């Protein structure tokens, strides 16, 4: 069975280490916050200027002046810090943030990522994604393995305008987990019940399969 969005988030959450500063993008990455393993303390950075992002407020306690980068109302925690946008990206560019999790439209087998524009159709802008991918040492991309037309989003070469070049290290899709290596996408785990053959069939980029690939534990 392919993973659902919450299962993808749950698997990513297992990559969190105690003490990490983490930036979670909009969409599936935001869900990672719901699955932080017990005993692991992480500090969430939101690029609109907040370190130590807390959960959504209780009903009636929303504050229009306190949102995350997805424009959702959030809360502060003891020890939170607020700062301006330049300071926020200073900590991103200077690699103080340990892990960045973000979505994508396409990823290529050399680690390029496209996520901000479909020429002539959709132009929303890159927001902070270009700054994040250009600087972060540890980037996990999470996305569905194929698009709505059933075509692979793991490609030899991205067809859409790029967000960053050669920057993606790991990818988690609904079908499996992959490491970007010089030889291509190395399959490190497969979703429970999903065969290597199915993943091969749905991956357009170079896929590296070494020995027995274990099933993902959730």
């Amino acid at each position, binding site marked *: 069975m392919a993973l659902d969005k919450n299962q993808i988030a749950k698997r990513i959450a297992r990559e969190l280490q105690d003490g990490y500063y983490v930036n979670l993008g909009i969409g599936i990455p935001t869900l990672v916050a719901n699955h932080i393993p017990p005993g692991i303390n992480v500090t969430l950075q939101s690029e609109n200027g907040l370190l130590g992002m807390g959960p959504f407020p209780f009903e009636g306690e929303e504050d229009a002046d306190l949102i995350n980068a997805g*424009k959702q109302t*959030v809360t502060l925690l003891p020890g939170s810090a607020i700062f301006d946008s330049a300071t926020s990206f200073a900590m991103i560019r200077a690699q103080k943030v340990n892990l960045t999790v973000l979505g994508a439209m396409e990823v290529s087998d050399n680690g390029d990522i496209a996520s901000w524009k479909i020429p002539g159709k959709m132009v929303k802008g890159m927001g902070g994604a270009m700054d994040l991918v250009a600087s972060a040492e540890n980037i996990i991309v999470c996305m569905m393995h194929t698009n709505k037309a059933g075509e692979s989003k793991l490609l030899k070469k991205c067809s859409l305008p790029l967000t960053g070049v050669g920057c993606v290290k790991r990818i988690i899709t609904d079908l499996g987990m992959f490491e970007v290596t010089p030889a291509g996408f190395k399959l490190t785990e497969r979703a429970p019940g999903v065969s290597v053959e199915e993943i091969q069939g749905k991956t357009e980029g170079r896929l590296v399969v070494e020995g027995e690939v274990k099933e993902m534990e959730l």
Partner: protein
Amino acid sequence: MDKRVTDADAALKGLKDGMTLMAGGFGLCGIPENLIAALARNGAKNLTCISNNAGVDDFGLGLLLKTKQIKKMIASYVGENAEFERQMLSGELEVDLIPQGTLAERCRAGGSGIPAFFTPAGYGTEVAEGKETREFDGKMYVMERWLRADFSLVKAWKGDTEGNLVFKNTARNFNPLMAMAGTITIAEVEHLVKPGEIEPDHVHTPGIFVHRIFQGKNYEKRIEQRTVRKRA
């Protein structure tokens, strides 16, 4: 120096067609609501507007798109505005999309007397096209220029008549940076106080960057994504 003006309309004195403006805010959080409404009344046209976002259809900078006062928009993310998308795809509106961190730093540079800097963001993408790139210590960077504005419109929570500003929570965002980069910076505040009522240690934007200040009214403070949890 007392920098008070009576209201938003008076604050915009000298604003002319074709000028470049900065407007603080992230989404609808921390936007100068009173000044944007006054700008719509003012009717100045062919404006270049620098702001992280472009508001929504009926609020924020979306109001100035509706009245076709904006000729060019410089932003990082514009996904919440259908009128914006229509004007952009039809070619009525010029749009320069730039990475959010680069936008913030370009404003900071403009307000700091630094004409250009190098950032890794956008290297190898269309954002870097036509720009100087250079290698430093084995990594490639793109040269970005400062941004400055004829008028910077910012919103703070509290300010004194000297122009010292304090922001609240994530309504800070781009406001302090844009305040630094304006030839004329106008601050609208929720609470305008006398000098001495803000602890000098607590000032976020020193008054030297602010030229005009007034207490705004009727703040709507619209929430874009109201997300809550149930009490246990």
